[in-house]
């Protein structure tokens, strides 16, 4: 029997489907004879008493989740997401650099440094990628800090905002599709496959409502993992292979019959009745991985 700590923040229980998924993890752990406790920010000193740590709060090297992950790692505990995966996936410049190095097919990307950002550079980018282009802050998550720009004025305005926090950012070719594939991968095996649909009239899965702070999300269509295209699954596994052996959500676009990786996310969303709809065993598989 193992003691598993699941690091969460209050917002993880705000959505009923996410809260239900968290309960499903607890049920799966207890079914296998393990203890499963929710660990909040104020209980971090209890980390050493556990055998494994499962992080569900949003991960980023800037957030408390990284402290939790690295502390557990230094103490020799099994941890998902491990600190290296958080470091890589939490920074798109790190991620795309590895994709380039290891020839992972990905959306054409250019890195832009604050010191080398000028009129000439903007024109060069538009010349290479055409218009519009997608400007992405390295710390993007949940479709935030990803914006489409078609002219120099908006390019400068978006870049100025993103450069406040990071001295470098990524610019990508705009490749609109009706949906992005999301392939859940655990320990080099496909766990689940979904289609994250793009809402009508928008260009990404999660889009901000005009004039409002809230987001509108596209539908999620879930497939049995056996029924997903083999090449898609192979591309996802290859992309995860350059990062590590943990739990990942790989976003892939299908363009002209080719699979192109958009990004690999550590700490992928798992909501009851969405990602688990046709792959209900995912909870048990993740728990098994944590304790073995």
């Amino acid at each position, binding site marked *: 029997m193992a003691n598993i700590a699941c690091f969460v923040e209050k917002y993880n229980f705000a959505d009923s489907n996410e809260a239900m998924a968290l309960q499903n993890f607890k049920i799966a752990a207890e079914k296998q004879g393990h203890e499963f406790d929710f660990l909040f*920010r104020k209980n971090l000193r209890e980390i050493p008493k556990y055998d494994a740590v499962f992080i569900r709060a949003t991960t980023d090297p800037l*957030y*408390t989740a990284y*402290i939790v992950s*690295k502390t557990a790692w230094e103490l020799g505990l099994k941890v998902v997401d491990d600190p290296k995966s958080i470091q890589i996936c939490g920074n798109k410049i*790190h991620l795309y650099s590895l994709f380039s190095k290891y020839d992972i*097919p990905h959306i054409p990307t250019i890195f832009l440094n604050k010191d080398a950002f000028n009129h000439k550079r903007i024109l060069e980018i538009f010349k290479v990628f055409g218009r519009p282009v997608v400007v992405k802050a390295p710390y993007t998550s949940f479709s935030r800090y990803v914006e489409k720009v078609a002219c120099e004025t908006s390019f400068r305005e978006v870049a100025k905002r993103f450069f406040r926090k*990071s*001295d*470098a950012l990524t610019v990508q070719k705009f490749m609109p599709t009706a949906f992005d594939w999301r392939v859940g991968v655990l320990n080099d095996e496909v766990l689940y496959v979904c289609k994250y649909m793009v809402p009508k009239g928008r260009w990404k899965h999660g889009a901000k409502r005009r004039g409002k702070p809230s987001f509108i999300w596209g539908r999620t269509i879930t497939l049995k993992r056996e029924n997903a295209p083999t090449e898609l699954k192979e591309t996802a596994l290859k992309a995860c292979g350059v990062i590590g052996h943990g739990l990942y959500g790989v976003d892939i676009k299908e363009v002209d019959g080719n699979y192109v990786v958009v990004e690999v996310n550590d700490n992928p969303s798992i909501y009851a009745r969405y990602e688990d709809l046709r792959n209900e065993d995912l909870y048990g598989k993740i728990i098994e991985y944590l304790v073995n």
Partner: protein
Amino acid sequence: MNINVQLVLNTTIAIPSIQSSGVTCVLVVSNIDLPTNLAIMKPSTFLETSIKDFTVNINNDYRYLKTGYYVSLHAEILGSPVIPSSENILDANRIPLLLLKASKAGIPTLPFLVTDSVKQVMSSFEFPVVVFAVNPFSYEGFEIAKNRSALYRAIKSLGRNYKFAVCVQPLLGEMFTFKSIFGRCKQAKSIEQISRKVYDVFEVPICKLHIQRIGKKVHLCGLQPLRKEELLAVDVEIISEEISQLSKNGDYLIG
């Protein structure tokens, strides 16, 4: 359609004479003007090249997402040994991880608490306490809270309105802050020792260290980046000396 293309703009970059074949020489990337005979490359130039050499990344600010971090990351992606590593940059700038790794390496530290709750701090430590920001954006060092309301204010401001947790340690002695350049500092022997040990563990060439002296014993409490204007001519000289030394020992370091 070939979608996996390596796109590099501005490829006509002058590469300093330090470039060599193999990894037998030291490449110094610095945002500080150094009086040395060695060729120094600017971070913005280095980030556009693929020069593979033992890289010494000299920067006054190594915080995550800043140029100092990206230089080390770029060197690692190229497969070059680099000082400091991106992992050490991340950990040294997050106080709980700094203290955890330092204590594992035998550097004296004090008990600490990562929290955003005033109540939890009060049930763990007596006043006064030292409060450090855990978010790596903060340039401010620490705040000393002598009572409940000061603690409340410190947690709120250093935690950026509760978005981030803070790291709290008891204040049992006196706080000291000093510059550490390649682990060297002009302080008492006990303090110099701690500075050297911190450099051995994290290899952050330029930083400010916060320590607490309790009686004769010194304890590491925090690490912070330096502002460029805090670097004096004497500090720049030490940096030049150290990189000249590293350059002389280059073969040994890489081997």
